[in-house]
Every structure is written in structure tokens, then in C-alpha cells.
């Protein structure tokens, strides 16, 4: 069994991405991956903090990394793409900018913490596609999702800036995971285009236009559902789908699943364990046939 320090982030722990957190834990258990939640972690600050205050933002991440280092120093794994790049950016800024680094050290010391720069931060999608063996995943699939057309949507911060090994514009990790579950991956040329992220709150019209393009491309290519690896992408595409429909007079009704929810269905987990009732555009019509075929 592999062990990691688990950093859910605010959204996946109990916010709009709570189903992502639930399905992550459930899939982890099914695949013998132990995700130990980092005790008393704090918000990474995400893009907003880094855009107003670089030093404060680096401090927020550094506290989490210091806690992980103190716990056991194992890799930190997060399902959230924004936490993933924010924690990673702190790690690289601490190394690249020694002046910033020593100020952050001094700030941490005020709370009796120190960070030796030794913790690696990885995305859940990376763990499941690199550390877990595809054969092992395939051997645990109880229900093949054959006949389900999936559009894997990577968005931005899972693949950019290039932190892992996946290609920043033509990534494959989610495609392979969906295929291991037996689903059919459809061509989705916009798979790394931006959904507008938190600008959905402050610049709604810009973000809605980006979301509309994504839904349009997935639908045109015959997707039965979109699969994401980021709580912000999922909320934008799922919860704001009705806003897109009213603004552009469209009638999209495309379920948007977390990739862990999709994998969980194939692994034989229940809808409840995967938080499927929390999706706004219900995925049950697309998924019920597979639940009915459960052994």
C-alpha cells in the first residue's frame, strides 16, 4: 500500500467540490492507496492570494509544507489543480528567490515552524496515472464503462505550467484513466482550454463565453459526459451550465464528473460513496445502466 500526505483543499474538503473529496477517498481505498489528511492544514491561498501578496501567499503554502515535513515528509497529494500549482509555486519560489525564502523562514519561525524545502507536491491524477499500475487498476474494474463517451477536460492548472510529465497542451493522463475504466475517449480539441476559473465571479461574461465553447466542443464530438480533475472547472461547467443556457439560449445538459467519480463507478462503488447526488446536472441517466449491471 502506498501512503501520501493528503491535502484536499477548501473546495474538495467541504465546499463546492465536496464530491471530489469523497470520491477521491473512496477510490483511494479501492486501489489500496492510503491518503492521510494533513492535520490542521490551511488554505493555500490559491491565485487570489498570490495576485495580491506574493510573500503572504508563499507563507501560507510553506506552513502546509512544513506540517507535512514534520509529519513524515511523504509526498503531498492534492486533487485540486489550484492547490497543486500554488503549493508547487511556493516550493520553487523558496528555492529561486533566497531573499524571499529567508523572510518566509523567519515568518514561519514566529509560529515555531520550519520548512527544509524537502516535500514534493503532486496531483492526484498524476499519482493514479503514474504510481498506480494501469494493470492493477484494470484488474480491479468490476463494471466496464463500455459505450460511455467521455470528454476528458484537463483545463489549465493540472498541466500548466508543466510541473508533472504530462504534455501542457495535449495531455493523456485522464484519457488513459478513463480508458482503463472501459470508457471511450472522444476527441476533445479544447481539453486544455481555460474555463475562466474564479473570474466566473468577477468577470462572468468572459468566463461564460469560455464555458460555452467547452460545452459546445464536447457535445459536438458526441460526449455523454465531461470528466474533470479540478473543483473549479467542475463547478464552472456543471453549476454554471444553466447560466450558459440562459445567456446563449442553448440547452446543454451535459453531466460533468470528477474523474474519480467515473473511476469509482467502474470500480463498483456506490453512487452515494462517490457523491453523485451532488452533481447539479445529474449524471444518473448516463450512469444508471452501469449501476444496474453491478455484479
Amino acid at each position, binding site marked *: 500500500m502506498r501512503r501520501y500526505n493528503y491535502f484536499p483543499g*477548501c473546495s474538495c*474538503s*467541504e*465546499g*463546492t467540490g*465536496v464530491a471530489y473529496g469523497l470520491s477521491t477517498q473512496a477510490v483511494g481505498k479501492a486501489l489500496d492507496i492510503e491518503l492521510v489528511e494533513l492535520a*490542521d*492544514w*490551511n*488554505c493555500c*491561498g*490559491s*491565485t*487570489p*492570494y*498570490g*495576485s*495580491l*501578496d*506574493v*510573500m*503572504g501567499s508563499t*507563507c*501560507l503554502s510553506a*506552513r502546509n509544507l512544513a506540517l507535512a515535513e514534520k509529519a513524515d515528509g511523504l509526498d503531498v497529494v492534492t486533487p485540486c489543480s489550484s492547490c497543486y*500549482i500554488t503549493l508547487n509555486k511556493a516550493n520553487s*519560489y523558496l528555492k529561486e528567490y533566497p531573499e*524571499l525564502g529567508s*523572510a*518566509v523562514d*523567519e*515568518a*514561519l519561525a*514566529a*509560529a515555531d*515552524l520550519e520548512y527544509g524545502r524537502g516535500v514534493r507536491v503532486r496531483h492526484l491524477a498524476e499519482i493514479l496515472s503514474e504510481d498506480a499500475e494501469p494493470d492493477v487498476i484494470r484488474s480491479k474494474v468490476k463494471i466496464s464503462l463500455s459505450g460511455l463517451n467521455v470528454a476528458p477536460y484537463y483545463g*489549465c*492548472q493540472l498541466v*500548466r*505550467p508543466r510541473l508533472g510529465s504530462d504534455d*501542457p*497542451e495535449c495531455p493523456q493522463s485522464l484519457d488513459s484513466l478513463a480508458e482503463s475504466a472501459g470508457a471511450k475517449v472522444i476527441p476533445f480539441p479544447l481539453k486544455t*482550454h*481555460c474555463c*475562466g*476559473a*474564479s*473570474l466566473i*465571479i*468577477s*468577470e462572468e461574461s*468572459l468566463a461564460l463565453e*469560455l464555458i460555452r465553447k467547452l460545452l459546445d466542443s464536447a457535445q459536438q464530438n458526441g460526449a455523454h459526459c465531461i470528466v474533470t480533475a479540478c473543483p473549479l472547472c467542475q463547478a464552472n461547467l456543471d*453549476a454554471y451550465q*444553466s*447560466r450558459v443556457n440562459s445567456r446563449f439560449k442553448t440547452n446543454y445538459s451535459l453531466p460533468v464528473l470528477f474523474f474519480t467519480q467515473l473511476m469509482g463507478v467502474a470500480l463498483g462503488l456506490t453512487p452515494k460513496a462517490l457523491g453523485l*447526488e*451532488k*452533481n*447539479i446536472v445529474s449524471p444518473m441517466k448516463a450512469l444508471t445502466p452501469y449501476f444496474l449491471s453491478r455484479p
Partner: protein
Amino acid sequence: MSNLLEEVYAIPGGEGVALCIQCGTCSASCPGADRGLSPRQIIGMVRADMREEILSGDSLWLCASCYLCTVRCPRDIRPTDLMHALECLAVRDGVSSKRTRTPLMYRTFINSVINNGRVHEAGLVTRFYMRTNPLAALKMLRLGLALLSHGRMPLRARKINGRRAVRTILDKARALAGTQ
């Protein structure tokens, strides 16, 4: 007031500004560029010391941090980090644009983190809409209720045990940076 270029240069993420060859690859990649100044233009204007146009303009705040410019720039400049560095300067100097609501949204987010150690999405969105456009808040009500009824929007903020430690760290950092 000192030269904008020098100030940008001194902020982590800002040093790349000198290396730009104005090729426009970033602008062609940017999802926000057709609504404001493009990253290439912004860099050119920083180098021309057009302080007010940049720091008080809207364009910085249209950056969605998609990092497409960053992975494509032939000079490895990281324009995304540069945008963030410029946003930091605009806020530090208190001159950020009043026409765009992104700085306020970011500030509301940050306050949630400082108070609780975590960000509370429901509180963030409510406070943001009440301060900017209560009418729009009404329009968003349906969305809020949908999230609420699907168990995705707890009304109570979670506070971490270490929130005092978080504050101590941030206060110390602020004192060291000499800002605010």
C-alpha cells in the same frame, strides 16, 4: 516615484520583463486578450514606464491564470507570474482599477483565509455580491440554492485550530515586507 521597470524587476516573477522580444505568442494564446491589453502590450508598456496606464488599468485583472503564455513563451518569461507581480504592485500602491471587480473579489477571498485559515465559498460569494451589486446577487440566488440543496455550500465557515498561527505568520511576513 521610481521607475516601474526597476520595481517590477525586483518582484519575484517580474524579472522576465527584460527578456521579452515582443513576439506576441503570449497574446495570441491569451483568452482575455481581446477584452483588454494583451500580455505583449503590457510588457511593452512596462518597459516604456507607462505606470498609470498599467497599474490602474483593467487588463491585468482579466488574467485567468491559464498559464498558456507561460508554457509557450520562447524566452521562458512566465507572463502569468509577471501579471501577478503587477497586480501586487497595483494593490500595494492602492491604485488598482475600480472598474474591474476582480481585485475586490481577491481581497474578499484573502480576508476569508486570514479570518478562518480556510476559504469559505458561500461567505466569499455573498460578501462579494453584496459589496458590488446586490441586484446581481438576486440573479445568483438560484445558483446558490442549487449548490446548497446539493450539499455543496455549507453556510458555516470552518475555522482551523491553527488560525492564530496562520495570523502570526502572516503578520510577521507583512512586517518583514514593510507593506500595509
